[in-house]
């Protein structure tokens, strides 16, 4: 009974502290909210990116007639509007970049000065400059000359420029394809000893144009769709909610261990303030006092995790997956975090060392344990980086929650459960032994 009284007193104190509440609930939700703000609108399930500012310099002015039908257009630009009436390949590229389909991701500014365009990128006023050289069309139409479109980008940017590069690159490939196709056909005729007449050359070009037109009418021959392995409710997964869920799991585990440490710190501060020695003079057994503190720590973390799970579902639409495993993960994370706090605080000589404990031990082990959260979006993370997380209990806790979110079963998580229990037992035994020795 005394044990419960001590636990209740400690919990009441924790939940009355605005700062404790801020760390238990405020910071994890704020951090998840930062990622929510950063990557878009969870409600729509889409990730939104900022528009890339592009400086376009078209110096192309052909001396020969250009037939836009010889070019295979990129996906979404196969219609006649983009190519209608254009007199050069430079103009065709400009039309594609200016088109409505790209307006949401590209903001075009046209200028006639390549130096100024590069300066805009250097000054971070634009992310990319696309510079189409003079005589570009002539070079494409000639079998002897080559041409280069300059793609000048801010090296700190990757996504926006890669989109622009992809569009321009597809057009360039279309030009190159035409040039290579016609050149190979003419080489074959030449190798076969056929005297190439202007009529034969015209026939080859005409056939290529016909083929290219047919291909354009069919589309680019690539159908793209998102993976459709259904979730528990048979619906396609919400990618942004899943990403926020991963971040929130990391934050939940990180701050659960933080709470475990702050709760255990009350043993040190109460000892310094004299409250604990006075308690020891009462008939209450030392085991009941310390046990009450341990229990308060564990229960506080359980409450913290339950609130964050509910908040995650209500605010961010996170699907937690297997609820049985969620319950198991809650209890095991609470056990590991509470005993971790007892363990590290048992090594602390006074409250002044708290900064090192929080900043050093809790942050280092917490961030190492969260490494799988950082690598979640990476298709091929460096070898062993996720294994490193398993050297700390936080890594196993994150693993347990991730398994639950992915719809795993308790039997699949037996190893994780076993390791978390082992960590908890080890922390508790060492921490309790040290505190018992200290207060003997």
């Amino acid at each position: 009974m005394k044990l419960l009284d001590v636990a209740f007193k400690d919990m009441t104190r924790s939940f009355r502290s605005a700062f404790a509440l801020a760390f238990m609930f405020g910071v994890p939700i704020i951090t998840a909210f930062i990622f929510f703000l950063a990557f878009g609108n969870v409600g729509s399930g889409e990730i939104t990116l900022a528009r890339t500012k592009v400086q376009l310099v078209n110096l192309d002015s052909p001396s020969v007639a250009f037939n836009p039908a010889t070019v295979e257009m990129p996906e979404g630009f196969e219609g006649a509007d983009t190519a209608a009436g254009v007199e050069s390949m430079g103009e065709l590229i400009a039309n594609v970049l200016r088109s409505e389909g790209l307006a949401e991701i590209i903001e075009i500014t046209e200028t006639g000065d390549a130096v100024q365009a590069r300066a805009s990128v250097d000054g971070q006023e634009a992310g990319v400059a696309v510079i189409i050289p003079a005589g570009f069309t002539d070079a494409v139409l000639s079998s002897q000359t080559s041409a280069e479109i300059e793609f000048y980008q801010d090296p700190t940017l990757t996504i926006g420029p890669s989109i622009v590069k992809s569009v321009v690159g597809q057009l360039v490939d279309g030009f190159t394809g035409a040039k290579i196709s016609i050149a190979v056909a003419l080489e074959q005729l030449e190798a076969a000893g056929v005297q190439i007449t202007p009529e034969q050359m015209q026939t080859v070009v005409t056939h290529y144009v016909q083929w290219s037109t047919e291909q354009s009418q069919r589309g680019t021959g690539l159908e793209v769709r998102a993976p459709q392995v259904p979730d528990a409710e048979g619906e396609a997964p919400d990618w942004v909610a899943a990403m926020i869920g991963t971040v929130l799991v990391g934050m939940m585990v990180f701050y659960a261990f933080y709470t475990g440490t702050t709760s255990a710190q009350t043993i040190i501060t109460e000892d310094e303030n004299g409250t604990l020695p006075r308690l020891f003079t009462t008939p209450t057994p030392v085991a009941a006092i310390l046990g009450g503190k341990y229990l308060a720590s564990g229960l506080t973390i359980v409450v913290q995790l339950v609130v964050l799970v509910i908040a995650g579902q209500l605010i961010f639409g996170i699907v937690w997956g297997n609820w049985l495993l969620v319950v198991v993960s809650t209890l095991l994370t609470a056990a590991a975090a509470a005993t971790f706090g007892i363990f590290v605080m048992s090594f602390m000589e006074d409250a002044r060392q708290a900064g090192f404990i929080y900043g050093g031990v809790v942050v280092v082990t917490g961030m190492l344990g969260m490494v799988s959260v950082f690598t979640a979006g990476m298709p091929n993370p460096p070898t062993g980086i996720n294994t490193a997380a398993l050297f700390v209990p936080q890594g196993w806790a994150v693993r347990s929650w991730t398994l639950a979110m992915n719809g795993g079963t308790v039997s699949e998580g037996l190893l994780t459960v076993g390791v978390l229990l082992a960590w908890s037992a080890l922390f508790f035994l060492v921490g309790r032994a040290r505190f018992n020795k200290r207060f003997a």
Partner: protein
Amino acid sequence: MRILDLALKDLYQIIRDWKGAIFLLAMPIAFTLLLGFVFAGVDEGGDARLPIAVLDADGSPLSQELIALFDASSVIAPGWVAETSAADLTELERQVVDGNVVAAVVIPAGYSDALRGESNAPLQLIADTASGTGSVVESEIQRLQTRLRSAVAAARLSVEALVAADPATYGSETAQTAVFDESLAAALVAWDTPSITLAETGTGQEQEAQEEESSGFSHTSAGIMVQFAIAGLIGATEVIVVERKSRTLQRMLTTTLSKAGIIAGHYLAMFVMVFAQLFVLILFGQLALKVPYFREPVATLIMVIALSLFTASLGLLISAISKTEEHTIIWSMVLMMVLSGMGGAWMPLETTSETFQTLGHFLPTAWAVDGMKNITVRMLGVNSVLMPAGILLGFAVACLVAGVVLFRTE
């Protein structure tokens, strides 16, 4: 002189504990390495290409040619090539959902005929193209398919031209197949050295070629440095709060030291601490990680001074509003997380939404990271850091004024 004595006393108090040094230096170094390996993909032993899965339902020489193009790509790596079955398709999707591969490509039956213009059987790409890696894979698949399609077009044109020119020799299917294969091979070879190209260049590339290369750690180094400069305030601000609680500040006022002198002494200690911390981290970044901070030493010095002044001012403000040691820890950590997270210290702001980028640039940390990257990634000079440093100084003045106004000795 007394101000200096006070600053030296604070510094001694902060660094006499070896654990403090670990927190100030070892942790940011450890995290720069850890996150650098995670984000920069610094894994020299492995295949850095994006893994994809392929299901070849066509099983034709042309589909094999496409897989060979995938294999030779510097962007994608077909690590899992399946046979045709419904179970394979389900497994393919599972591989994408589980994140084992970035995308899956299904080469449908009849793909070869479609390439020859005899049917319509488009390639299927299963990927989250809203993600950066998904869109990169999409454009690479598109590029390689365009290459194959144009090679097939070249082969068809050759066959048609030769049949038209010499039907007696090239009328048979065997002769046409030989011409087709030869032309296809010639076209694919021609694609290796195309005459129309996209020349990629960028800010600072000339300097990069002449001097030092940008390092994969450049973003992480700058971001972690900014983050841990703020985190390092925990110990420094604690010193002031303890002095206030123990009434040491009030006792100091009984000496010839004024309130302004006390503030200046503590401020100087925090400035020197952060400056020294940043200096060591920059030295480590330059020497161990090859982040080219020293290519523009004056620009780097300007940024370090500006960041140190801002961080010291923030420290003064935190110590002014904190009543207990616990409060200093909480304020330092909350500000560290919000300023680092939203200022682009964790992830480059370009990967975030437009609103977030705008919000981020209302924070000093975004300008600190920008200024450092102007030197180490954009390879720019002193002029490029004047604005970021100026904005940091503006924030420093604002925090300093607020800190001085709110500073209490009891």
